[in-house]
């Protein structure tokens, strides 16, 4: 039987609930879960003050209610599954290394910063800095998958070094900035200054995008690995057409200021 947490009192200020994570709740009984610590602003209170706890966690947690102001859910998660019915606040799945999180609504900024493994799916939109490095940190996301069906804002995959980010909608500016390695697929349009300072890694978009002056055009081609990637995300429910899977892509390389080994692939048959 899975564990169900339903929000009964909406927090007035941000609620930091990093205890809500299968690793920490597996096998714990209802009363003990309700007594676990959460931070309501600066007030250290109990999880039960906000959530009704029902069942026991056998690896799966279901969350209900408007969690837009609830932060740090699934922090450092390594196993299990979390299903979030509505919207969710910042720092979802921060530093997670395994397991799966599914969000039916929208997510806020900082989805899965510095993630090393596992999978996050967001059916709605998300904010800035998806899969990024925390400020001052040298490496962002290193592995795992982030699948977002809607739009996102700026700095997607800032300093990422591995893994896959797939965005169904549009991205803001500086997608893949400082990227070290890894893959970002954007089915919608990208903002400006994508891939600035990137060393390696791949950014793919289905639309034309403005290039910064330190990127240069190389060729138009049809790479095999891309077909596999696109077929994979289509299987996950993203809208990818046959033309896109079989089509040609313009390859730009950069950033010349850095190693010049990063690539941006733009769908050529648009």
């Amino acid at each position: 039987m899975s564990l169900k947490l339903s929000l009964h009192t909406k927090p007035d200020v941000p609620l930091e609930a990093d205890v809500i994570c299968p690793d920490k709740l597996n096998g714990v009984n209802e009363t003990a879960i309700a007594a676990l610590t959460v931070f309501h602003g600066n007030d250290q209170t109990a999880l039960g003050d906000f959530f009704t706890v029902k069942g026991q966690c056998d690896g799966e947690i279901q969350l209900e209610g408007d969690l837009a102001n609830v932060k740090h859910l699934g922090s450092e998660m390594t196993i299990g599954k979390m299903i979030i019915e509505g919207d969710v606040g910042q720092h979802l799945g921060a530093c997670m290394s395994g397991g799966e999180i599914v969000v039916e609504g929208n997510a806020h900024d900082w989805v899965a910063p510095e993630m090393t493994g596992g999978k996050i799916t967001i059916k709605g939109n998300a904010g800035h800095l998806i899969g990024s490095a925390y400020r001052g940190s040298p490496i962002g996301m290193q592995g795992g998958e982030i699948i977002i069906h809607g739009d996102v804002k700026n700095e997607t995959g800032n300093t990422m070094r591995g893994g896959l980010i797939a965005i169904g909608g549009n991205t803001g500016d500086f997608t893949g900035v400082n990227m070290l390695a890894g893959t970002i697929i954007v089915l919608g349009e990208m903002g400006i200054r994508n891939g600035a300072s990137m060393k390696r890694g791949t950014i793919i978009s289905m639309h034309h995008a403005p290039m910064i002056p330190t990127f240069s055009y190389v060729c138009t081609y049809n790479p095999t690995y891309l077909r596999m990637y696109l077929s994979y995300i289509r299987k996950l429910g993203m809208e990818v057409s046959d033309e896109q899977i079989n089509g040609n892509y313009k390859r730009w390389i950069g950033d010349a200021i850095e190693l010049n080994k990063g690539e941006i692939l733009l769908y050529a048959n648009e």
Partner: protein
Amino acid sequence: MSENIKIVKNATCTFCGCVCDDMELTVDLDEKRIIKAKNACVLGRAWFAEHTIGDWPVAMIDGKEVSKEEAIEETAQTLVKAKFPIIYGLSDTTCEAQRQAVAISDIIRGTIDTTTSVCHGPSGLAFQGVGESTMSLGEVKNRADLVIYWGGNPAASHPRHFTRYTVTPKGMFIPNGRKDRTVVLVDIRKTPSAPVADLFIQVKPGKDFEVLWALRALVKGKNIDPSIEEETGVSLATLEDLVDKMKNCRYGVLFFGMGLTMTRGRHFNSGAIMALTTDLNEFTHFVTKPVRGHGNVTGADNVLSWQTGYPFGVNFNRGYPRFNPGEFTTVDTLSRGDADAAMFIASDPASNFPKVAIEHMKKIPVISLDTKQTETSNLAHVAFATSTYGINTGGTVYRMDDVPITMRSAFDSPYPDDEEILTAIKKRVQELVWAKQGIKIAVGEARVA
């Protein structure tokens, strides 16, 4: 003019980040005002002239005059009760007062942020990400033979920057002053600063990053496509000429302003200019510096960094400092409706914040400390009137190049200074928090501020 005149030599002007400390003030002690400020620029003269002693009460609660003690008690109770209290402002007060504000936010486990977050906050982020090759303004005066201003208009905002530090003064290795220096101005329009420059480069609005990036590439010997002109409005030849100047100077400096930090790209724009400076150090000595606005905003960065480890947007909710601009910066905590109490020190966010932030301010208890009545003090639950730093209060301020300068007061004010009020608030919140913790936390765990 009365007979009771006092001359204050080597006084300090704190209106802008230049913090000129060579003022000669003539004070009319009967009328309690400064009648002359020798050496000050227009802005400095206005600053000294407008700070007379007002006649509003020292403390008010909901618009009614109360004693200072009552107001301090109400402030402390409000702050301790709040779950997400924020403290903001701090750029126009002394480092001594800033220190007390940090202590208060630590005790109440609040969030502290300064006006840096709405001016050069992006530069703060870039310092952390890219690093800063820095200097003092004295070095610029004595050594710089190439001075570049990017996205700023010091002739209007920092009138004595050119004459005191960067363009006209003669220095140890710049014996002929202006003649020995090359001055370049880069901006999106011709400003009053342009006539000072030998070379003015006009960039299309919002294209600073692209120009800086192209310069970085050229400095590193990479090719840039001539189509750069169409995109940015600056020809390849101009860029190559500028790179030539930069590589071949003896000591170059890049000053940048809010034209860079507050336009699209923000911290990446500041980061680009800092990275360009780093690149240039392969060839010659090159430094960079943001041209900071308010008198002691640099001090606010320094005090916060020194006490919490981070320059702005610091949160203590969990008992230890965390830094995350966008999450803990004041515009965001107000716009999202996170904050449930706010204390504004020497700043008037109600007049310049986005509308949704101001709307939220009206819903929560606000405490304001200011030298004059402002829109913020008008909507405040508790409003303190304090004396003006550098005029009625001594203390320490930091010049924009992180050089601390000690100020003296020119004449006394009947109002208390920010430090005095904040120290009293700190003492009271500490007592209240200890009383609260006595119930919730076992003895021995209580933190001592």
